[in-house]
């Protein structure tokens, strides 16, 4: 069979295309292995650029749409106001005694502080409300972006909560935004010091990740424990670390205790209290300390 010039050119093109396809596939594999050894985090410039675009997109598009959506949900909520008002009035009756008790306790704490010359307690903190600009669960890195930054006195390492409990810590800050690394990150860079209220005892540990297959936060216990109370509550301990997390921020309830086969490590699995399905408004917690 006589090969024409067209056939020869066709064959050459096919071979070239095959080589390019193989090179692309090899490049994907090589880059994947290469990524194992280098950090995947964005550089500061990339983060600044992507955060700025995300904030602009939030204020131009998402916030107006949310405003319209909220109007409808508020209208629906108005219909339930009468019933809710009735329940709240009943609760108000017991509120007066709680308020009086709180006043007494606050006064005693103040007197104790004056006596011991302590200005701030480890559990004292201030909060700053922030809106969530992006919450991309598809991105694998379990981060959300807030609409406050260093201009709002937000710093790296600060704890972030929703109405029910802790959700994460601030991992990076720009002037107008802050990135929160959630507790559900499967490969965290920082450990959060925690305490577990076990009846009259307090146990201490380090929260070191999230077990995605069990759906629980994982804590390595530093204290010895023989028996753990069912649904023991877990809080931040305010000890160690970078000193940014105050004492007493609620994290969740303990569900399972697991001892390693050689008995060296005890792991506690905790069900998080925060609602990670709906993160719209959060509070950034700032520890009040003697450096203020």
């Amino acid at each position, binding site marked *: 069979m006589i090969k024409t010039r067209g056939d020869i050119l066709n064959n050459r093109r096919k071979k070239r295309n095959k080589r390019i396809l193989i090179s692309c596939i090899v490049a994907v594999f090589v880059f*994947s*292995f290469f990524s194992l050894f280098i950090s*995947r985090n964005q550089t500061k410039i*990339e983060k600044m650029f992507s955060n700025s675009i995300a904030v602009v997109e939030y204020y131009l598009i*998402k916030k107006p749409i949310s405003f319209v959506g909220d109007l409808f949900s508020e209208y629906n909520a108005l219909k339930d106001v009468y019933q809710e008002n009735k329940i709240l009035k009943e609760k108000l009756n017991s509120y007066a005694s709680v308020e009086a008790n709180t006043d007494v306790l606050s006064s005693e704490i103040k007197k104790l502080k004056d006596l011991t010359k302590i200005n701030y307690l480890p559990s004292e903190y201030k909060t700053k409300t922030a809106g969530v600009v992006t919450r991309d669960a598809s991105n*694998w890195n379990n981060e959300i972006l807030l609409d406050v930054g260093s201009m709002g006195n937000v710093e790296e390492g600060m704890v972030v909560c929703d109405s029910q409990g802790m959700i994460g810590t601030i991992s990076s800050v720009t002037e107008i935004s802050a990135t929160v690394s959630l507790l559900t990150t499967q490969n965290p860079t920082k450990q959060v010091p925690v305490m577990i209220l076990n009846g009259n005892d307090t146990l201490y540990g380090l929260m070191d990740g999230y077990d995605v297959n069990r*759906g629980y936060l994982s804590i390595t216990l530093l204290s010895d424990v023989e028996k753990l109370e069912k649904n023991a509550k877990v809080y931040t301990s305010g000890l160690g670390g970078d000193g940014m997390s105050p004492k007493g921020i609620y994290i969740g309830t303990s569900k399972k205790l697991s001892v390693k086969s050689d008995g060296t490590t005890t792991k506690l699995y905790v069900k998080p209290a925060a609602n990670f*399905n709906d993160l719209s408004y959060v509070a950034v917690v700032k520890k009040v300390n003697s450096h203020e």
Partner: protein
Amino acid sequence: MNKRLVRYLLIILVCFICDDLLKYYLPQSFLNKGITIIPYLGLIMFTLLNNTIDEDMRYPFALICGGFYSLIYGNSLLMYMLLFVVFAFVGRLYTKKSKFTYFEALLFVVLTIFTQEVVIYWLMWMTKVTKLFIVTYMLNRLLPTVIFNIVGYNLVYYIHDKLKIEGDNNVYFGKRS
């Protein structure tokens, strides 16, 4: 810069913004226990436009789209750029010069989304960003994403077909007017 390339890039930008809006309002859980759906309208439109874009604009178009997606929405710069270039190359290699039919485009879009998801999951697994089991990943993320995007594909295909974004197809000269 070529006017046609600018027009294509603006269309892709609008699609990426729609993706981001959908991600913001679709129910998502950071606990990875429920279903996670990722809209890929931008990738679908890229696949359709790649079929008809001029040869000399194909790879710059892919690089810009991939780079933009990586920088703004992704966390792995080179991988998305590489993936978009691979899609551009394979799209050109295995498709006819004439326009996609509905089912041809659907098949190609599903394969593209599947490839991107699997490659990114593999990269995340290799770099220990995730320890999600593959079966859980396929049931909770991959399958719902593909099904959702098949529905989204109909909208994108309709817009792409009716609005005649590329202009008229001159079959004798093989270029769009």
